[in-house]
């Protein structure tokens, strides 16, 4: 997957979790939690969707790496390069 595709994947997953999520003004380096009003239950959903869709195993200690859109892409890029 390219970086752009990973970014779209994250956006698609978050929109599935919360159909009201608006990405137009989301800054890629600011925490998604604050910008989209997400909480820890939502982040667990993101992790579980990645596992379901791409068989990714993300350990709990790595959850903080999913904080911003860019950090998500950075973290997932090596894991999804064959996807």
């Amino acid at each position, binding site marked *: 997957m390219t970086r752009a595709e990973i970014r779209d994947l994250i956006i698609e997953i978050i929109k599935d*979790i*919360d159909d*009201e999520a608006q990405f137009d003004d989301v800054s890629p380096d600011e925490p998604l939690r604050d910008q989209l*009003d997400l*909480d820890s*239950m*939502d982040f*667990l*959903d993101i*992790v*579980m*969707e990645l*596992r*379901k869709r791409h*068989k*990714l*195993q993300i350990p*709990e200690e790595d959850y903080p790496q999913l904080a911003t859109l860019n950090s998500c892409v950075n973290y997932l890029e090596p894991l999804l390069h064959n996807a």
Partner: protein
Amino acid sequence: MGAPHIVIGGGLSGLAAAIRLARFGEPVVIIEQHNRLGGLNSYYTRNGRLYETGLHAISNFAPRKQRHAPLNKLLKQLQLSRDDLSICEQLRSEIHFPGTEPLLFSNDFSLLRDTIDDVFPHALAGFDRLVQRLDHHDPFAPAPFTATREILSSFLNDQQLIEMLLCPLLFYGSSWQDDIDFNQFTILFRAIYQDGFFRPAGTIKDLLDLLTETLIERGATIITGTGVEHLRVVDDRVESVILENGEELDCNIVISTIGSDETRRLAGKNIDKTDIVRLSFFESIFTVDSTGKTAVSKDATCIFFCRQNRLRYRKPNTPVDLKSGVISLPDNFSGREAGTMRDVRITHLANYQQWFDARAASASSYDDLKAAYARKSARVAEAYVGSFFEAITYQDSFTPLTVQRYTGKIEGAVYGSPNKHTDGACGFANMFLAGTDQGYLGIIGAMLSGVLMVNRHILPKLAK
């Protein structure tokens, strides 16, 4: 694929846990001993009419825009649409004590505050400070049992007001006698006074059908009509679940919603604290023909009453304690159309042992006792809802024995053991509690309990 996760108990907490697991493609089997799902909140039909068991009103009402409110959070976690619930809000509810005007509350918190201002003007400032304190209190932070009455006395300079405010919260969620843990009080105060009541426009069957369809769509296996006979345990692991029909199911992680002692029993463990008091109730349903000379209230949704100044919320020494209770009028929700037949449900505290003894004596003495208390209960309730006794067309009563038979709760204790396990741990490496004995109460609370225990104990630990 490996062995499935197993959810024991097809009540609302179990259904929510199973839906949550199935959402992420996890194999899951949910087991309900009865032919019908729902547990404490189920239904039956008589004379072509559907009667709900358990449900009076669902607390934790929240408008759609409150994204983090428990109701909306729950729907999001289960990926259910709010529109499928067809929510009807309560009209208003009442708290009656002797010698004083009733307190009123609705889904608009200012109604409660306004009636306190009318009835207990000297206590209003203290009430406002109490609400402030509650707003800043985190009831989910682990804490030892803290008595609520003592805290209330430091804010409210009127004992009658304290009793009145406690009455609905104890009746709708306390497994403790007389007092309640301050964390539980805070949760219930929010759920009942600050959020309020609603119910589905139809019946509880609509909600159960929605949850069942969702489970089937997501590939879960539902087993009904056979309970768990025992759990095969090696060291501290549940290796398999043996059903009453003899089938043996291998399991990954088990979520048990049937209660902590009830679960330990299935695992062949001793139950140590047999001296704990479990609270149970006696409930009667009356269907009333409202075309005649009856005057059943069309304004009140729930009426909480006590016929003495001090509320005694404890196991009575008589089969039923008629001195206090809750009257539920399920037709009095906004947007619900009452037909000519209206239901009146009345609930009182009851004594399990006395019903057990009556039943042991003979079937007829048990039936006579039931009929006698239903009659007395109706007469007591008429003082609050208006006369209806002469217009009753159908009636039925549930005793603690009925509840025990249909829900498996020891002594028919609908709010479970007074000892809660908020982390869900019950002494096994791969089995966790959800539902009543985990400690979140009410329909929304029970369902959130199922979700949270799955989130905490299963999802983060799944292998690839």
